[in-house]
């Protein structure tokens, strides 16, 4: 019997929800604006809706993990984000945690 598709979808979303912050922080080691960040994440296989990504960027900035500035590019003003020093430390800590969880799960699975 295959997995119930509806249940699988809800569990899949739950599983990946926690990893999105890590992915966004890691992607912003290079400065990007929202649209190119989303494309970069999608290119690596992590599709993310704008309605999730943009508020997340603001929340991470308000938590001091990101820095941002408005600059003009391609004739339009865009908000560029990059990792702050606090964000780099957080990324390192979360990466260790992620690898730990991964190693544990690998043993179990």
């Amino acid at each position, binding site marked *: 019997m295959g997995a119930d598709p509806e249940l699988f979808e809800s569990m899949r979303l739950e599983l990946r929800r926690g990893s999105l912050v890590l992915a966004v922080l890691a992607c912003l080691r290079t400065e990007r604006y*929202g*649209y190119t960040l989303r494309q970069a994440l999608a290119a690596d296989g992590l599709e993310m809706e*704008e309605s999730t990504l*943009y508020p997340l960027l603001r929340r991470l900035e308000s938590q001091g993990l990101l820095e941002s500035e408005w600059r003009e590019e391609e004739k339009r*003003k865009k*908000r560029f984000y990059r990792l702050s020093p606090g964000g780099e430390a957080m990324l390192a800590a979360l990466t260790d945690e992620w690898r730990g969880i991964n190693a544990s799960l690998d043993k179990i699975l």
Partner: protein
Amino acid sequence: MDIIDRYLNAVAAQLPQDQRADIVAELRDMILSRFEEKEEALGRPLTEAEQEEILRDVGHPLAVAARYGSGPQHIVGPELFPWWMFGVRAGLIAIVAITAIGALARVVVGDVEVGRAIGQAFHSIFQSAIMLIGFATIAGFIIERQKEKPAFLREWRVKDLGLFEFGGSLNAEAVSRGLNEGDWTLKSPRKPRRASPMARAVGSAVGWSVVLLWWIGWLPLTHTSPEVLGAVIGGVDYSLMLGDLHALLYWPVIAFGLARIVFDVMHAARPDGVRFTALGDIGFGAAELALFGWLWLYSPLSKVVFVPTVEAFIERVRDTVNTGWWPLPTILMLCVAFGFLHAVYKVGSGLVRLATGHDSRVT
């Protein structure tokens, strides 16, 4: 005004003033980038329908703006919800009980037919339940948005958990299943059990709160107020009598009810205090003795319930049993007499418990 402006205006209206311009500028850039990407793929400008499709993909303005909110995105969250459910459950049980008693009283005094009383009771339960759920939801909404959550969410003691036996007879799980799956069968078997002293105290406090609200006219239960719960039966105007009783007992009942609620709350906080409970029972029993004595001897009800001797009392009951017809004055006489005897028993058993420090009801 183009389609993007109209969309962004709707988003902006939901955003906090100080962040509005910043968020809208960023969203505008994101939407224009999506438009350009699609135009590049199609090799032509987008039609308005295609633009609208992209905006729909971005999300409804209400949903998009809500994601920028800093507060909780729910009225009552998962941590508080069990408390909300417990409060609603306990209140609903009290409302149903009070409404049923009120409806029964109206049928007994002949104020209304059975069918009509049932219909009105359902209407009252529905109205009161909506009000209760509304108040509970407002309280939950406010608590949910406090920086510090109330202490009762974290600092609880195992010995106080008897409180949560109250309201257990309303099966919330079955209701949720019914709403979700349309399955209204009650699958959870229930075992009969005796409520703990704490559950009894909380039940009493909730019950008295509802009674008090009804007494002062704040609960639309059974379409009655104490004054109108009556009729002219056998040449006696019970409406007038009940109106006088309500006026004379208005403040004493409020004082008694408030004292009872305070006592029940204190009792719930220390359910093992046998002597404390005994003292309370003696005090409230004495107040009930005074009430029934007054009803018997001096109140407006006295003229229908009073009999001067025990022989006259027995004679009246015997007549009733022999004829098989139960007139209202006899029913009221028996109610007052049994109320008085119950109060005597309450005071007596309280005195015994006070002396011995033992309560056989607590095992």
